[in-house]
């Protein structure tokens, strides 16, 4: 369904057509489909927020929440910031947008323990977004993947939201990590993260011109 709509929607985003409020119902339906089918189309969602920005009378808080939650699922990309910039102070303060803003803020700070606690305390906020929790786990794995060479197994389980052993094994396998007793081996970081030395290289060609001019 989402795939099928992608083309239709793309034609609605071309040129000046992007600002046509008549497209709003279709675009809003597309947001709902994305939530349901775990699909994602940032450009279409930004166009919805843009139409709200130009036509405040059409502002739909429910759709806006879905767009923001979908943006959270696309961390580490900065889609969430892009969405935030198209809203205004008053809208951000509205319930439950302010809750989502808080979630975004702690996720940006990588305080995953608090994030999970908060999400579990209000399941109704995120449960409409299919695959929401796993998308966040993907982001956790991204951060772990760029930070660690080896990580404590218990700590990893905590970061993923206090997952049980089976789930932990699933994520470890998915990312090709290896369990080594109490630790999980992520990857050989010292191959990528090395001290760089930048030295000036001057070869003859570089100085040829100036030498020629100084006769």
């Amino acid at each position, binding site marked *: 369904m989402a795939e099928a709509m992608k083309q239709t929607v793309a034609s609605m985003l071309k040129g000046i057509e992007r600002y046509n409020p008549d497209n709003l119902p279709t675009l809003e339906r597309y947001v709902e489909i994305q939530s349901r089918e775990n699909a994602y189309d940032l450009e279409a969602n930004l166009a919805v927020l843009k139409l709200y920005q130009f036509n405040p009378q059409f502002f739909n808080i429910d759709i806006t929440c879905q767009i923001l939650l979908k943006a959270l699922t696309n961390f580490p990309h900065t889609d969430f910031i892009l969405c935030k*910039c198209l809203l205004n102070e008053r809208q951000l303060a509205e319930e439950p947008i302010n809750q989502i803003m808080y979630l975004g803020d702690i996720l940006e700070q990588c305080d995953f323990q608090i994030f999970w606690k908060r999400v579990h305390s209000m399941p109704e906020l995120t449960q409409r977004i299919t695959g929401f929790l796993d998308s966040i786990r993907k982001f956790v794995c991204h951060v772990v993947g760029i930070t660690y060479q080896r990580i404590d197994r218990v700590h990893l389980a905590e970061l993923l939201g206090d997952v049980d052993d089976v789930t932990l094994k699933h994520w470890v396998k998915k990312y090709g990590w290896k369990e080594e007793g109490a630790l999980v081996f992520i990857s050989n970081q010292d191959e990528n993260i090395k001290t760089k030395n930048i030295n000036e290289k001057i070869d003859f060609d570089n100085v040829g011109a100036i030498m020629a001019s100084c006769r």
Partner: protein
Amino acid sequence: MYSSDDYEQGYSRDYDYNYDTDYGGHTGDPTADSDYSRQHFKMPELVVKFLKYFCECVRDRQVFELQNLYEGTWPKLTEEYFEKRPWPEETDVTAHVKNEPIFLILYKELYFRHIYARIQGGPTLEQRFNSFYNYCDLFNYILSEAEPVPLELPELWLWEIVDEFVYQFQSFAQYRARLQKKTAQELEQLNSSNKVWNVLCVLNVLHSLVEKSNIKQQLEVFATGAESDSVAGEFGRHNLYKMLGYFSLVGLLRLHSLLGDYYQAIKVLENIEVHKKSQFAHVPACQISTSYYVGFAYMMMRRYSDAIRTFSSILLYIQRTKQLFATKSYQHDQINKQTDQMYHLLAICLVLHPQCIDESIQQTLREKNYHEKMYKMQYGDLQEFENCFVYACPKFLSPCPPGTDSIPDDFSKEAINHQTTVFMDEVQQQRMLPTIRSYLKLYTTLPISKLATFMAQNQRNNDGKWDLDKETQSLIIHLLCFKHKMKNIVWSKGASGLDGNFHSGSELDFYIDNDMIHIADTKVAHRYGDFFIRKILKFEDLNRKLHLIKM
């Protein structure tokens, strides 16, 4: 018809006409003055001559002459006769030039622009409206004909038409949002003509110019190295349409940025490589403006490497070509301001994302007040971040004006406050990173617990008592945040500036192996090449001068 040389002579010859004595009695009040001058203004002979010749050049499509008139004579006459007063009214002009509608539209474009720029108190509501209608006339003329219109204008003028159009929209939106000083009559008028300077109308004009010129297709073909004429179409082959199309893309970049839509801002420039010289890159002001908005959008998207690359490359260009546009004062002010803003933005980016940049840009940042500001920001002075941001950011707009019946308040700051908040949230999230970075810089390996101890001691508010476990836990969160924030999308190739891959471009990086931090720093050896080249050139210069001295 006379050539511009004759004109210059005429200019000095006729200099002593009775301008001063004619206007000795003006009141100083701009509105009274304009009535006064309307009655008494006798157009100086020189201005009449100028207008006649100007009109002929427009009609005969003398682009080269028009460029001289536009860049040279107009500013000169403005300074001479119209420093503090508007140029003559349309009716006064028509008395002297033959009926040439397009010339009058172009004249009025300049006339209103001059009012916006120079007349104290700014344009009146009526003038804002009339300027808008004049732009409508101009764009209707260009866009609605069945074939390309017989008009050619210098590129700088075309750029300034589009740029000014967006500027006047911005100015109107700000004016509109300040409800507190409006009279009932003004509010009434604003209410009844809400189509004037409407955001959709402005977008529509820019999009129409883009489409008419096929500029997107042209740029796409141009990017592959082929000749873009093949896809330009009937209109796009004409320089007028092609350049208006290109400048409209930059206009859209600016407009999207003003509305906080950074994604569209960058996207609209697809197939334009901002740093590359091309057939479109002849207008410095346009290039500088492009880089400013692109760099800013990148910064907001936390693409610091891209922002830093964009800013340093244009700042380097400005450093090298400064003398070229130093002579044109009205452009110069604008360029100077934007340059200073870009140095501020670059300073912000470098504090958040330390990275090696070109030595001569680094040199400027070490000088002047930039150094102190960077120092303060590094030490977590949030106010300094905010000050720099507010000074250097675009003048953001709310696309929807407040209703004329809302409380008579100043709404013009709402948009800028919001964008500032978004940016400061980001800074706030990163507030611990500079401290961590400064410790990591001292080591190649460092146990997490040891760093946690340092961090705890650094915070003086805990009366000596602290819990190592707790400190370690919160440190690990900050370390994860460090890695997350320093790994960003960086453009390397592709048609769109939105493309890119995740990279850690900052000069300090690390990884954690269980409970040990391994640190990788970037060490830059001293550079001698530039230094010696400068000295060699200086010596050569000195030597040459010595030879020229005749004793």
